[in-house]
Structure formats: structure tokens, C-alpha cells
């Protein structure tokens, strides 16, 4: 869909493109959501223009009639807000659920390659770590658990269950924001533990896995924070 939107406008003309720009400017959410919608509306407007021309209107009047038929850009954009909120929340939730185990696996591989622990004992029982670090590892269950539950709720409330449940885009956006901020907390805690280990035993960590895990966690933290903020902004527009 995004790829399609990068194509040059087929034959929309200035009036159609101006109208679509007015809608796009009022649509909340990220660019991928807006571009798919405007691409679809563009083809609809061109179909409407064709219909008016077939009915005998000259080109410019046919375009104006099509735009008039599609209506006030603000109202069109308002109609899409709930849908964008639901799609955004769903996308955020899916990405967090997919990336979480990947980042976790990178941290575990860092720990194992650095010989911080042994495979058959959970990390909070590794004797190579200080008591404070082991306690902090136990704490990780809170942000990780909140992320997983909020993301699962966000996915459930925006997917096939909506056939039977009332639409709740505001709740979905809340779930997306909660999952995002909880993921920020999980990554921040992981990075703090990493920093503590660096201070306690400089040189003990395997450099390449540690750098990969820290980079992945920092990137995820930044993106999760941005996604959570977007969910909050679109949630506010649904009030």
C-alpha cells in the first residue's frame, strides 16, 4: 500500500490532489496509514469523475462534482480516525510482541557468551551476578508482563473478535500506549542492568553480543516510546 502511494498521481489533477492533501493533513497517525487511505480515495475520486463525465459534465465540472460528492475533507478524515487508531494499536502490539523475544534472546546470548550464568538455572539465580542485579532481573517480569498482556489485549480488540464485540478503538489505543510504555520500561531496565554489569566487571561482557543487544534495546526503546506517544495522541482525538 505504501509502495503504491509513492507512485506519481495517475491523473488526479490539481483539484483532486489539493482535496486529498486537505484530507491527509487532517488524518491522525503515521504516514503509512495516511498514504494508503489517500491512494484509495484518489482512485475513488477518479471513478466518480469518470461517472460524472459519462453523465455529460465537462472535465472540470466533473472533477468538482466528484469532490463535492466525497464531501468536506474534515468529515472524511474524522470518519477514518477510529479505524486508524485501531490499526495503529494493532500494529504497535504485533511489533512489540515480535521484537520482545528477539531482544530478550540477544540479552540472553550476551549473558551466556559472557559466561555470566548457566543454561539450566534461570538468570535470577546466577551466582556470578550481584544480589542487586539478580533482584532487578526478577523485576523485569513486571514491564515484560504488562507489555505482553496489553499487546495481546490490543490485538484481540482489533481483530476477528470485533465481529462480535462492540468497536472500542479508544481502548485499543490505550492498550497500544500501555504496551509501548511498558516495553520502554523493560528495555530501560535491561540497559540499566547492562550498565551495572559494565561498571561491576568491565571487560567481562562479550563485546559483540553485548553491543548487538544494547543497540537493539536502545532502538526498540526509542521506537516503542514513539509508538506509545502516537497511540496516546490518536486516543485523545477520539475523545
Amino acid at each position, binding site marked *: 500500500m505504501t509502495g503504491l502511494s509513492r507512485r506519481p498521481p495517475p491523473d488526479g489533477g490539481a483539484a483532486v490532489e489539493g482535496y486529498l492533501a486537505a484530507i491527509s493533513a487532517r488524518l491522525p497517525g503515521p504516514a503509512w496509514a495516511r498514504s494508503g487511505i489517500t*491512494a*484509495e480515495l484518489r*482512485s475513488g475520486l477518479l*471513478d466518480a469523475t469518470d461517472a460524472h463525465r459519462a453523465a455529460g459534465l465537462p472535465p472540470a465540472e466533473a472533477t468538482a462534482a466528484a469532490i463535492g460528492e466525497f*464531501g468536506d475533507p474534515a468529515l472524511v478524515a474524522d470518519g*477514518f480516525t*477510529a*479505524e486508524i487508531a485501531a490499526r495503529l494499536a*494493532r500494529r504497535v502490539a504485533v511489533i512489540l510482541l515480535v521484537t520482545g523475544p528477539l531482544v530478550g534472546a540477544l540479552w540472553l546470548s550476551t549473558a551466556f557468551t559472557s559466561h555470566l550464568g548457566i543454561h539450566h538455572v534461570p538468570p535470577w539465580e546466577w551466582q556470578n551476578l550481584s544480589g542487586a542485579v539478580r533482584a532487578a532481573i526478577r523485576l523485569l517480569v513486571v514491564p515484560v508482563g504488562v507489555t505482553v498482556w496489553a499487546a495481546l489485549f490490543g490485538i484481540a480488540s482489533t481483530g476477528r473478535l470485533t*465481529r462480535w464485540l462492540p468497536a472500542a478503538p479508544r481502548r485499543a489505543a490505550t492498550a497500544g500506549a500501555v504496551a509501548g510504555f511498558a516495553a520502554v520500561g523493560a528495555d530501560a531496565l535491561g540497559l540499566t542492568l547492562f550498565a551495572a554489569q559494565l561498571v561491576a566487571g568491565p571487560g567481562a561482557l562479550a563485546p559483540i553480543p553485548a553491543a548487538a543487544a544494547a543497540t537493539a534495546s536502545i532502538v526498540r526503546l526509542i521506537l516503542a516510546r514513539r509508538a506509545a506517544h502516537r497511540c496516546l495522541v490518536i486516543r485523545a482525538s477520539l475523545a
Partner: protein
Amino acid sequence: MRAETLKGHLDGILLAVLEPGPSHGYAIMEALRVRSGGAVDLPTGTVYPALHRLERAGLVRASWSGSGGRRRRVYELTPAGRHALDGERSTWRDFSAAVTALLQPAPPPAVNPS
């Protein structure tokens, strides 16, 4: 007829419009007008988001089709969508029968000859 009047039945109406075969956004809006004799003329900001919602629910499938100058996002019913349409029809028959019965003019009260 305003979108609010159709609230609760919009999904069934859109599924019914898609029942004969795949269609795109503007053709669906046109079909709503034509099949209702002009009584249903829903705004763009209602029809397109509703189609997206039905897609998310797995009741319709959407794909871009066409090549060259114009590509359209085409919607078609999924098996779950056909099943949901059957349910919507059944619900509507019960609902309309009940409301029709309730809206019938009440029979005049029996007059006591005394």
C-alpha cells in the same frame, strides 16, 4: 437516509452489496444508492472506514487490482463474511417483523354498549 438511521445495520448492508462479487469503494457507494432507489446515500467518511473495519474483522478481503494508470482497492466477501451476512439477514427479518407489528395502528378499543 442518514448514516445514524442505519446504525447497527451498516455492516450487513455493505456485506449484501458485496455478495454478488468483488467491488471497489466508489462502486460500492454507487450500488448503495442504486439498490436503495436513492434513499441510502452514505458519505465517504462512513463507507470507506466501514470497509476497512470489515476487512480487519476478516469479513471482507481487500486487494489492490488493476495495472498501469489506475489501481483500485477491491473488496470481496470471505467465507466468514458470507456467514455473517446470513446472520444479519436473519436478525433483520426478526427485527423488522417485530417493529412492523408494533407500528401497526392499534385496533380501536372495544366500546361498551351500556
